[in-house]
């Protein structure tokens, strides 16, 4: 077989693989949508999303507690993670000598590889008892420990690596000349970081935060293992909560036995896909803005 023919066959095969990969997300969304239809036809979106009662046997599918649960734990994780990550990234990029940076960075990247169930296991072994026996009594509350707070803490740690590494890279791309200009005027390092570096790095850091948010939003196992999974809107940090991914994971067994249950759970899955797609596009837009500005 001559070279040209080989080249053509190979390129056709590769094209096929590529087309397939580009369509997967659409096929997924389509299938999920089709399976969600039954429940969408019986109830309006606002009814589904704002109702708090989740009793599948009684045909009540109020997603509100899960939406709030997911948003709360993700929000809590971000509140904990963002300051810690930004300060860490600034330290690594602006203050740490390169030797120290070389020592600290690998462990942080290692955090990213730890499986979700292991974080869940750790949460159950350490965080939940800590909250139950130390934190809650200190705050005057009682709880089993399986709570929004546990979920938030574990989730925050899970997003540390992604926010730190992306932010640190962003800081490193800020050109030295701008920093030099600030120093030459007699600014301290922190003033330079606060007024000059942060300003230039803002779009990139925003993208890092969006990435962290989307990682946290879709997290399933760790959250499931430490949040308690009670289908009620949490009223305090020490209350249990239930996230959308956990909902799907916990109930697939009963899915087929109760009418409309499967449709409801797959609607939850569809919501996850749509939110992820939205966040992904958002992050891309922010990154495009950076490219355009630097030209």
């Amino acid at each position, binding site marked *: 077989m001559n070279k040209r023919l080989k080249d053509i066959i190979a390129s056709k095969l590769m094209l096929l693989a590529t087309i397939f990969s580009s369509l997967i997300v659409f096929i997924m969304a389509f299938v999920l949508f089709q399976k969600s239809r039954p429940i969408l036809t019986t109830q309006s979106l606002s009814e589904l999303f704002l109702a708090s009662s989740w009793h599948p046997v009684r045909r009540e599918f109020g997603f509100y507690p899960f939406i709030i649960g997911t948003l709360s734990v993700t929000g809590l994780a971000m509140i904990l993670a963002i300051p810690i990550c930004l300060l860490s990234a600034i330290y690594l990029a602006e203050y740490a*000598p*390169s030797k120290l940076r070389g020592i600290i960075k690998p462990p942080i990247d290692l955090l990213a590889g730890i499986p979700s169930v292991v974080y869940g296991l750790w949460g159950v072994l350490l965080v939940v008892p800590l909250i139950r026996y130390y934190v809650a009594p200190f705050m005057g509350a009682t709880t089993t420990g399986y709570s929004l707070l546990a979920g938030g803490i574990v989730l925050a740690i899970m997003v540390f690596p992604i926010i730190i590494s992306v932010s640190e890279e962003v800081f490193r791309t800020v050109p030295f*000349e*701008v*920093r*030099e*200009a*600030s*120093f*030459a*005027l*007699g*600014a*301290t390092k922190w*003033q330079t970081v606060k*007024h*000059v570096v942060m*300003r*230039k790095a803002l779009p990139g850091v925003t993208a890092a935060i969006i990435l962290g948010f989307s990682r946290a939003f879709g997290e399933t196992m760790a959250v499931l293992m430490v949040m308690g999974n009670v289908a009620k809107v949490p009223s305090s940090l020490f209350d249990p909560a239930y996230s959308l991914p956990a909902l799907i994971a916990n109930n697939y067994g009963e899915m087929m036995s109760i009418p409309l249950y499967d449709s409801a759970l797959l609607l939850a899955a569809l919501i996850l896909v749509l939110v992820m797609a939205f966040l992904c596009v958002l992050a891309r837009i922010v990154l495009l803005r950076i490219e355009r500005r630097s030209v």
Partner: protein
Amino acid sequence: MGMFKPQISIQKLNVFYRERHVLKDITADIPEKRITAIIGPSGCGKTTLLKSLNRLTDLVEGVKVSGNVLVDGVNIFNNRIDVTDIRRKMGLIAQMPNPLPMSIYDNIAYGPRIHGVKDKKLLGQVVEHCLLAASLWDEVKDRLKEPASKLSVGQQQRLCLARALAVQPECLLCDEPTSALDPVSAQYIEKQLLDLKKDYTIVFVTHVLRQARRLADYVIFLYLGELIEQGPAEKVFTQPSNPRTKAYIEGMFG
């Protein structure tokens, strides 16, 4: 030095970038309220010498400095001295204009602000005064809030000059201030420097001999990190003592 009064006194300055010995035992004086040109072929340590005068060399990782630099009798390398104070006194204008990512107004106001000036009226006055001194005021007075990046390269360099003036320095250090500019803008800057020398001590680095001849009152010639010759411009350009100086000036190398 004769009629020149030294303001900056460099004594046995050695600068190492890790293993590279960039400046070798430099001893030189820089006269007050005059224009001093540091000349020499590319890569001979001119910029390093300039930047050691305001300790911007501190920012390089792995740098080692020995020797003294006395400004008005005070050694700037003394550990107890506040570096930010020295840098305020020694304004720097870089080779490539480097406006801060802010508006024109904020660029100039940045300096005073970081040193604690908060009064808006005062800041406004400083901005106007410095832009006038850099002869940029007329071109930008109606668009002070626009981002500085929108200015042309020549305007940006004048902005950098105005920005340096805003913190009331005593000296102006200029690293090849016109090499990135078109001839018209370059002329502007040169004219400004000549005007400013009555109030500031100016040190500038250049590899363009004609520019040095045009502007300098005093000359320091560096070659491969060593000080070859220093003296009043007249003398160095017409009757250099060192044969290497003579060779450089006559265009034999660099």
